[in-house]
């Protein structure tokens, strides 16, 4: 087998797996921080219980996210050493700053938060969870600074066959970063919020600890709705931006081989044949693509064949068309997931405001399944953006096929691919088992201060929560 193919499979699978946990960590951190802040303000024990219950879910999730992130940090050097040599100068600093600025903050303050409930002043303990959240947000910012460079390389010059940074500010003000960062960040908030809302809905259906889970639903549905609105809004800006920097990706996302008509219709579904370069059986919405691309009812969008010609002139012979079907369907799945999330969010907010959650069992059931929507949206979103950039690893600068480690054999990559996949499968199984278990147990009662508590059970007091 081809080491390049295996290395790509490994990068895709480990990154997708890692990214199931990351957005949920960011989103849950926000939800928990808000819950604990309410507890701090009101002193109502219900909110403390809530914080601890969702905190347990957060910690299971955070652990898997952190450990799978270690591999991400080293995978560039292991499988993509030619890439690392070539762009380390520009790409590496973001990762280094992410480590020093974000990872230390997350890991130190999560330790203080978990172990510091009785050891820290309340204010400082509350600050800890906010700093954990701040750390995760900073981490997202810096890794996206690095990723944005791959999509829209700026701030560098060629020197002795390598890319060298010559303008750090250009990396930070990369327009790609400023459409991508809010999109990613708010979809992460939505991921955590839909998770909390979905689990709460399940508990409400089961009529367990109604008071707490109705409150949890209410808090999370607000976060979910607001975040989804931002995600959709920024997503649109991103598409407009893409058209100027990576028109090939947008043309592939529309399966547009030839230049569109003016005004351009949006293709909802179609049959795509990438070998014959045809798209047939389209169902289209007139004007819509012009509106999406230019915010007006006119404007022509370039097709892949035209762009291919430009690129051949610019970059030399080669195939510059990404896997069209993957990009087309990922894009549609993402937009579909986002739209459903918005509808559910708005309706859920309305129902919970009117305190009619229990009277809507069907909706509650839908919300349980809706937990999957942000995960699907996140995953296909990344598949679209990364596959849509192919054949480039750094757009216009380096091709993926030239980036791989020359000295690593297919056997070695296969060994690591199988080992990590096996371990990750086990982790996924255990994490899901622990979520389900924790959810079924529900929130534990706070230490009761009755006089005879020690007499009842001297060995294991009720302070064990989920910890043992």
């Amino acid at each position, binding site marked *: 087998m081809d080491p390049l193919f295996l290395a790509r499979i490994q990068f895709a699978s480990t990154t997708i797996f890692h990214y199931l946990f990351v957005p949920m960590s960011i989103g849950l951190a926000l939800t928990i921080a808000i819950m604990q802040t309410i507890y701090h303000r009101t002193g109502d024990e219900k909110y403390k219980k809530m914080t601890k219950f969702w905190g347990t879910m957060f910690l299971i999730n955070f652990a898997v996210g952190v450990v799978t992130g270690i591999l991400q940090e080293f995978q560039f050097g292991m499988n993509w*050493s030619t890439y690392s040599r070539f762009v380390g100068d520009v790409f590496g600093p973001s990762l280094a700053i992410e480590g020093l600025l974000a990872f230390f903050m997350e890991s130190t303050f999560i*330790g203080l938060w978990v172990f510091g409930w009785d050891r820290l002043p309340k204010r400082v303990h509350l600050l800890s969870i906010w700093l954990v959240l701040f750390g995760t947000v900073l981490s997202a910012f810096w890794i996206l600074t690095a990723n944005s460079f791959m999509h829209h390389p700026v701030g560098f010059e060629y020197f002795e066959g390598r890319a060298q940074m010559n303008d750090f500010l250009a990396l930070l003000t990369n327009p790609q970063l400023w459409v991508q960062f809010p999109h990613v960040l708010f979809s992460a908030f939505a991921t955590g919020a839909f998770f909390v809302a979905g689990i709460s809905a399940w508990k409400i259906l089961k009529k367990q600890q109604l008071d707490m889970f109705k409150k949890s639903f209410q808090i999370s549905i607000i976060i979910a709705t607001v975040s989804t609105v931002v995600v959709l809004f920024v997503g649109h800006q991103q598409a407009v931006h893409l058209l100027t920097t990576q028109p090939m990706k947008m043309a592939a996302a529309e399966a547009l081989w030839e230049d569109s008509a003016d005004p351009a219709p949006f293709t909802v579904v179609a049959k795509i044949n990438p070998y014959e370069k045809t798209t047939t059986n389209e169902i289209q919405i007139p004007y819509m693509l012009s509106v999406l691309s230019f915010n007006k009812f006119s404007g022509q969008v370039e097709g892949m064949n035209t762009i291919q010609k430009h690129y051949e002139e610019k970059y030399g012979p080669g195939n510059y068309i990404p896997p069209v079907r993957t990009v087309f369907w990922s894009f549609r799945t993402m937009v579909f997931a986002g739209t459903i999330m918005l509808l559910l969010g708005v309706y859920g907010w309305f129902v919970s405001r009117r305190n009619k959650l229990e009277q809507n069992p069907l909706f509650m059931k839908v919300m349980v399944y809706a937990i999957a929507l942000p995960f699907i949206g996140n995953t296909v979103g990344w598949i679209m953006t990364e596959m849509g950039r192919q054949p480039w690893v750094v757009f216009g600068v380096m091709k993926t096929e030239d980036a791989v480690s020359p000295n690593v054999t297919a056997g070695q990559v296969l060994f690591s691919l199988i080992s990590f996949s096996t371990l990750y499968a086990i982790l996924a199984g255990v994490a899901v088992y622990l979520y389900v278990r924790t959810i079924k147990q529900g929130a534990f009662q706070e230490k009761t201060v009755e006089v005879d508590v020690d007499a009842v059970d001297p060995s294991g007091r009720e302070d064990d929560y989920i910890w043992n």
Partner: protein
Amino acid sequence: MELSELWFLLIAFMFTLFFVLEGFDFGVGTVAKYLGRDDYEKRVYLNSIGPFWDANEVWLISAGAAMFAAFPHWYATLFSGFYIAFVFMLLALILRGVAFEFRGKVDHPVWKQVWDWAIFIGSVVPPFLWGVALTNFMTGVPIDQHKEMIGGFLQLLHPFALLGGVMFTLLCIVHGLQFITLRTEGELQERARVASSRFAPAVLLALLAFAAAGLWKTDIFTSHGTGWIALPLLAWGTLLLSTILNKKKRNRLSFLMTTITIIALTASVFIGLFPRVMISTLGAANDLTVYNASSGDYSLKVMSYISLTLIPFVLAYQGWSYYVFRERLKGKDQLEY
């Protein structure tokens, strides 16, 4: 000082902190399963590193990322060349990280046994592999004229490297046991102290053999003059002193000594390497050095400003977290894991 030299120093500093800090939590993870006689005791041992281990590990991640940014060639050659070794190390670190979190979540003996093993394997494999890696940094590895390392994993496992692996594992165990004496009390503390003195002869012998082999087979301890032999001697001397202090129940000082041992040992390797970052056994012309493996000056300057601003803050709040959890663990209510 050139910026690339400064970055060599910073990366050496991060690795040193990683070995010192994660060193003891590797040690604790290795012994907890054997030292704790029942679940409660094991939990106390694991909780002694509970608030710290995650942030300790970030020194490794930051060191790796700093290599990527400041010395792309070093990062690329090392991680692609030591490929299988890093696969094993990453598997171990992944397993260990989740094991701490998962272990206490279900109260069932088989469940706990599984994660106890995961913690043990995850804590014993990385220091062994780092010992192997450090030794190979000293002896050099086959690097061709394109800066690519050739040859497989087994080539890294020569007898000297295995000695390095065993030595570093033992050193982490003793360092971890000394740490336990600071965070526990009574019977649990005493047991760690006794265990530490049992390991002492083996680790003293291993370090002595390692230093002798290093002197005989490599130029690391003498590349800047014979005076630098003082560093491995300091490492061995402080280790001996730690053993004596441990016998006298001077726990704090004893821990301080193993800390100095690890600092001196790591420093001796990095100083001996300088200005090389990776030695090639195929001729000095193929060596990677701080000069031919580094990033451009602009990038290094930007990172210097940012890192030198951030590191003091990181050290301050990480230090503060150690201060917050300075008390010895007593009673069940302080256990989270």
